Every structure is written in structure tokens, then in C-alpha cells.
């Protein structure tokens, strides 16, 4: 007799999304690699478009938008702060492509490994091998991967931007430095908590399997 697994539809949907994400990522990497080599041929230009995150200092930003409040009793001292944006420019030569890949390679590695772990995990769950030691290990690895990506990728992005700025000779550009990425760091901690609960589930499953 087989028992129905709760949330099977959601799991199946998650698996479809992970599969789509996986193939998009693979396709994206292949396309990016192909474009790296074919871009000069397609466009006839040896310039490569790059983009870096910059933050405008508050004292400069306040001059960008001069605001006055009509009624200082209701609101006063309006000022523009924390302005961030993307600085785009074109860089000449193969070196710019190599600099782009410095950041792209670790990013793609995180995406591919993360999606691979997610797909394997969801495949096993759909195949009714839910509380297995392998799945617990996958969740733990996924959690650490997300935490690592949350810390390493923003720093790598900063390094990548600094190298581009130096190569382009655009000294004095205020780069935007994020110490960590909230978007992956916190989910990573949550996944680690789920992994710990999963390990307990594995023990319970083994207990159940070995009760005759």
C-alpha cells in the first residue's frame, strides 16, 4: 500500500521550475560563452559593454534634486540620500571580456550547483525517497552554498567593478559596496535549519523502517 505524499503538486511545480531554471542557466552559459567569442564578429566592434554598480555620495546627491517644502510646518529639510545606479560604458579588447568572466564564472557555478542540488532533491522527493541521508546532505550543502554566495558574490562584484574602473581609467567613481546579499544569506540560514530538521526526519524514518 502506498500513502499519498502531502504537497505533491507543489513539489511537482517546484521541480518543473527547477528544471526550467536549470536549462535556462545552461542555455545562458552557452549563449554567454558564444557571445564572448562572436560579439566582435556580429557587431563589427571590438568594444564590449560593461555595467558596474555605483553609489553617489549624499553630499553630491543632494545637488541632483533640489527640493523645497512649501510649508515647513508640515515637512522640512528634504534631501536625497543613498542614490545608487548602474554605470554603463564600453571597454575595448579581449581583456574586458576576461574581466567579465571573473565575476560570471563563480556566479554561474553557484547557480548551476544550486539548481543541480535542488533538482536532485526534488526528484528524490517525488520518487518517494523523502527522508534519506543524501537529501539531508543536499540541503546542508545548498544552505552553505547560499550563505557563501551571499557573502562572496557581492565582494566579488565589488572587486570586478574596481578592476573594470581601473582598466577603463575612470578613477574617482564611487563604487557601491554591499558586504553581503540579504537575498541569499537569509534563505541559506533557513535551508540549514530545514536540513537539521531533515536529519532528524532521517533518524525517525530509519527507526520506522527498522520496526518490524
Amino acid at each position, binding site marked *: 500500500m502506498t500513502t499519498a505524499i502531502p504537497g505533491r503538486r507543489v513539489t511537482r511545480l517546484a521541480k518543473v521550475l527547477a528544471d526550467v531554471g536549470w536549462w535556462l542557466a545552461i542555455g545562458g552559459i552557452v549563449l554567454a560563452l558564444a557571445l564572448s567569442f562572436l560579439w566582435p564578429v556580429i557587431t563589427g566592434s571590438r568594444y564590449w559593454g560593461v555595467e558596474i554598480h555605483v553609489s553617489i555620495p549624499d553630499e553630491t546627491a543632494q545637488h541632483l534634486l533640489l527640493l523645497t517644502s512649501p510649508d515647513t510646518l508640515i515637512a522640512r529639510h528634504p534631501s536625497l540620500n543613498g542614490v545608487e545606479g548602474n554605470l554603463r560604458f564600453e571597454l575595448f579588447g579581449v581583456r574586458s571580456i576576461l574581466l567579465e568572466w571573473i565575476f560570471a564564472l563563480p556566479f554561474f557555478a553557484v547557480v548551476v550547483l544550486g539548481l543541480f542540488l535542488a533538482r536532485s532533491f526534488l526528484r528524490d522527493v517525488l520518487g518517494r525517497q523523502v527522508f534519506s541521508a543524501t537529501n539531508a546532505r543536499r540541503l546542508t550543502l545548498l544552505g552553505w552554498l547560499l550563505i557563501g554566495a551571499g557573502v562572496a558574490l557581492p565582494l566579488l562584484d565589488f572587486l570586478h567593478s574596481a578592476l573594470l574602473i581601473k582598466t577603463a581609467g575612470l578613477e574617482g567613481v564611487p563604487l557601491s559596496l554591499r558586504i553581503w546579499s540579504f537575498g541569499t544569506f537569509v534563505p541559506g540560514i533557513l535551508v540549514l535549519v530545514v536540513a537539521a530538521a531533515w536529519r532528524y526526519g532521517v533518524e525517525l524514518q*530509519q*527507526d520506522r523502517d*527498522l*520496526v*518490524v
Partner: protein
Amino acid sequence: MAIRVNLDLMVVRRGITLTELAERVGITLPNLSVLKTNKARGIRFRTLNAICRELDCQPGDLLEYVKEELTDGEENDEPEA
């Protein structure tokens, strides 16, 4: 585990095979093998009841407590006095 299952001994005494016993008790042969090789973490009263019925024995004939030294890292399952 300090509880030893003497199923193989009882099976030999009664002169039946494990396959036959599994069929009569209504559990799978791998599960009976888990029980026989002392790998089981527990036994249901329903299973114990069926085995005792088919082997015409008491639970004490099947289960035996063996005092053993705990190795490092092994949990003590015995309740505190």
C-alpha cells in the same frame, strides 16, 4: 542493542523455514531477516503476537536481555534508576 532476538534458534527447534514463517506471520522475508539478525530497532506487539502464535512459544523464548559494555559514543538506552 542489549536485546537479542533468538528467532533463528526457535525456527530450527520448530523445524520450519524463515520463508514459511514470514508467510504465516504476514510480514516480508527481508523484515523477518532484519529481526533475526538483530538489526531491528523495535518489534510491534502484533508481529510478536503472530510469531509466538506460529512458533508456539512465549516472548521470553524469542527475546533475551544481554548485558553488554557500552563503547565510546554509544547511547545508553537503559532508563535511569
